[in-house]
Structures are given as C-alpha cells and as structure tokens.
C-alpha cells in the first residue's frame, strides 16, 4: 500500500499571532513551526501501517524551502520519502490542485490529510482533492483499518460516531483518534540521522487560477475585564447571567 500524508507547516499552538505589512501578512518573527497536529495524527497512523502492513509512506507539503525542516521531521519520525511542491500555498484550492497533480501520477492508495490546519482553518483541502480526482473521501476520520483494498473507518459526527466501509483509493481528512496523543513520536537521534539521507524531492507547481485571496488580517478586539463575583454570592452570578448576559 502506498500512502501519501499531506503535511501543513504551521505555527506551534502556543504562538502569539501578529501581522505585519499593514496587517496583510502573518508575522513569522520568533514563531516556531510544527507539523499541523491533525496531520501528525495521520502521519503516525501511516507509520503504523508501514510497520504492521508493509506500507510505504511519502509525506508532501506545498511551501517554500523554509518548510523543509518540517518535512525532515516527518522523515525522522519514519516516513520513507518526502516531496515539497515549491510554491507559496496561496489558498486551499491552489494547494488541493497541486496535491492532486502529484497523486494522479504517483499511484497512491491512501491519501491522509488533516481535516483542518491550525493556521488558516480552511478545512477544505482533503475534500477538494477528492472532488478534483473523484476518489472516495471520508472527513473527520478517527479510525481506519485496511484489508487488501477494503477499508473500514470511523467518522466523528455531531453527537456520536459513524462506521463506514469503503475501498481504496481513498482520501481522508484525519484528526485525533487515528492515534492517541500518547502514540505520537518524538524523533530519536537515529531517526534524525537517517532523515538527512532520505529523498526529499522538490517539484515545481502547476499553474492554477486563484479562487480566493487573503486581503488582510484583524485581531479580535480587546476584552473588557472579568466581573468577579464572590463565592458567597452565587445569586449574583445567576442574576448577571439571567438579566445582564441573558444566557440562562
């Protein structure tokens, strides 16, 4: 089984979010980048398939040379090879189109992307790839097993979960549950050393017309200070929630 794991290079979840150039660009100054958490759950599940079922795992990212450390980290965790599409990921459709081109010629059986990236929160790339290629698609996927070309998988739904059956080739939008937090791997020294010699192919992008553009960014308005209520005066809290906030 050939698995492709799509990886976004995103600011660490503790990052302070600021903008520069008239609020038109994200301020990368001092920001640590990581593998997008939803993608990392998928990557770790892919490595499980590699170890238990002999799958090969390719990781792919659309981004400039500055994103290569993130791909190297994925290689250190255990991916077999990496591809970087050398372009600025301008919007979800652009990224999906680039990835679809590689998938079309690469013969991948299972494509794992995170259901959403933590920077732009578009949540659209896996679905768009599926739409472009006509592959089977499962979003919000929390578990997957593969037997030959038959797949059983679980999708989170509002207020529960749904078990589905489908077949490869398949694309999933993955999230926590594919593996648990404790299963995530920190690259060891051997992994880091090996990663240096693994193949990282750089591919030039294909032309795609833009469908959206980010015009500018805004930060939420500053919040007014918390109203403290004494622990001995819970009636006051109920009063505030009922008469002032009108939420109960």
């Amino acid at each position, binding site marked *: 089984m050939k698995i492709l794991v799509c990886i976004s290079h995103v600011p660490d979840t503790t990052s302070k979010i600021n903008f520069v150039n008239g609020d038109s660009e994200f301020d990368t100054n001092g920001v640590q980048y990581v593998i997008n958490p939803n993608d990392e759950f998928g990557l770790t599940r892919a490595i499980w398939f590699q170890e238990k079922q002999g799958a090969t795992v390719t990781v792919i990212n659309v981004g400039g040379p500055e994103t290569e450390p993130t791909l190297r980290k994925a290689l250190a965790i255990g991916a077999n090879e990496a591809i970087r599409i050398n372009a600025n990921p301008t919007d979800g459709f652009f990224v999906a189109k680039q990835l679809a081109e590689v998938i079309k010629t690469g013969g991948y059986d299972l494509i794992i992307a995170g259901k959403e990236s*933590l920077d732009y929160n578009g949540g659209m790339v896996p679905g768009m790839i599926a739409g472009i290629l006509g592959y089977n*698609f499962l979003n919000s996927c929390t578990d997957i097993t593969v037997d030959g070309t038959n797949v059983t998988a679980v999708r989170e739904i509002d207020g529960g979960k749904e078990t589905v059956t489908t077949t490869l080739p398949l694309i999933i939008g993955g999230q926590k549950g594919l593996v648990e937090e404790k299963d995530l791997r920190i690259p060891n020294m051997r992994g880091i050393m090996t990663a240096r010699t693994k193949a990282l192919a750089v591919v030039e992008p294909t032309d795609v017309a833009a469908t959206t553009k980010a015009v500018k960014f805004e930060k939420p308005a500053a919040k007014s200070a918390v109203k403290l209520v004494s622990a001995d005066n819970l009636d006051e809290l109920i009063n505030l929630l009922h008469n002032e906030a009108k939420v109960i």
Partner: protein
Amino acid sequence: MSILIYAESAEGKFKKVAFELASYAKKVAETLGTTVTALTINAGDVSELAKYGVDKVLKVSNDKLNGFTAKAYADAIKQAAQKEASKVILLSSTTDSIYLSSLVAVGLDAGYASNVVGLPVSTAPFQVKRNAFSNKAFNITEITTDVKVLGLAKNSYGIFETPSTLTEEDFAPSISDADFGVKVASVEKVSGKVSIADADIVVSAGRGLKGPENWGMVEELATVLGAATACSKPVSDLGWRPHSEHVGQTGKPVATNLYIAIGISGAIQHIAGISSSKVKVVINSDPEAPFFKVADYGIVGDAFEIVPQLIEKLKAFKAHQS
C-alpha cells in the same frame, strides 16, 4: 440568481443552524437584490423556513438519501445551484456540512470561504470575514470566482424572523451509484445527552477536579442547565473523560452562548477553541489563572464548594422561572 442554502435536517426536523443560515441568506439577498432558495433533503414539513425569509424550497425526497452520503448530498446541492443559477451558496458548519462544502465548491468551480463570521464586508468585490489562526485572528478573504460558496461559522450571526411567502417545489436531482463509494455501516449516537455541537450551554471541567470520580457535580450542573459536558485536553489525555469531550485547538471548537469552565486554568490552546463562545464563566481557586483574562464572569474559590451550591441555587431559579 437566488441565493441557495442547504437547510440541514435530522429525523424530519430542521436543525437550528438551518434557521441561522436562512436568516443570514435573507440579509445577503436583500443586499444583492435577490431571493433565497433552500434545498432540503427528506426534511418532511418545510413550512417553518418561511419564518426566516426563505422564498422557495427545492424539496428532495429520495429514500437513497436517508443516510448521510457526502458525495450524493453534494451532487444534489450542486444541481440545485445550477437549476437556480445561484451565484452564492451557503452552508453551515456542522460536521456534515463542512464535509460537503469543499465537494460542492469543486463541483461548481466556485471559490470557497469557510468559518465565515458576520455579513460580507463588501459584495463587489465579494469579501467576507472569517475566523483564522484558531480564533486568534480574523482574515478578510476575497472570493474572486463568479460562483461563491460560504460556510457560516456556528452561532456567529443569530436567528432573525423575516416572514416570507414560501413556494415549494419537488426536486429530483440525478444521483449516480458512484456517489455511494462510502457506505455507512452503523451510527452510534450518545443518547440522552446534549451534544457539544448542538448545545446552547457547555459546562466544562479540567484537572482542577482532581479525578474522574468527581465529575458527578459537572454532569448535574449540565443537567440543570440543559447543557453539554466538555473537558480540557489534559483530562482527556489522562483518560478521565472521553476524547469526544475534549474542547480546544486540537479538540472540538465550541461556539456556544454560555461556556462555564470549572478548574480549567486556560491554556492558550484551550482558549483558542472556546473563544467563539459568547459568554464565558470561570470558577477557579487560582486568581492568577489565565482564564480570568478572557472570561466575562469569574469566581475565585474552591469548585468543590461552589458547584454544589450553584446547582441548588440554579434549581431554585429554574423552578421559579417555570
């Protein structure tokens, strides 16, 4: 040219997000000088949509679509948009609608903006404001294609009544067998509990509760308020509560009217996940806990003393209300 919304229903009843979407569509339609058409799938009685400004309903009744099938539903929405020559297609942000939206966008060669909050900033050029960086910022996005798909963030606009005269039309989109490549084998719903996605109020607790055996009072507070229960990431990582209750940046987002955080210090990732909630209450023994910086109301004190008292007082309040 009318604006198309997909009005989601479950077991023959519209979800609340369908009314929020209709209210939003009506307002956008007024700006653009057009009307609102809703697509419904096996929804039963659709007359309720008239309250929120829907002018026309395309009713799909098809037994094949009884279970949710993303590709087939997306196909139905696409064909409805083509039939109505819609330039703007609106979907909600339920798990199902997010699943559909990108398929619909690709099918219509449309630009797609998700997590949209508030009315369009401008309609020519077409610019919307959306949540980005996990609620730590907003992003103004311009959609440059002729046809546009928007995903409206939950609880970001509100429900407004604008009565209209509704015409109903049966609609039979052609659904191909290829749409059923993913088959639902079984559905498991947590019964008797309010889900985080549907809740108006969420009661959430963290490590300050010291152990899973102490969640009885959290459950009880939730029951009194008709709320869903949730938890912080450490609590789900420790296995005290199921992962489905984990809210935050890598868990479920919460955009509810009232969020009550008990014994949760307020890590930046947790705050990011719940910041779209309208009113936040924190109960924590540590007055320095970061949650106090983002909360509307706060109580400094011992949750084990406060929560049981709050439950009793809320019971009395509710009894008085009814």
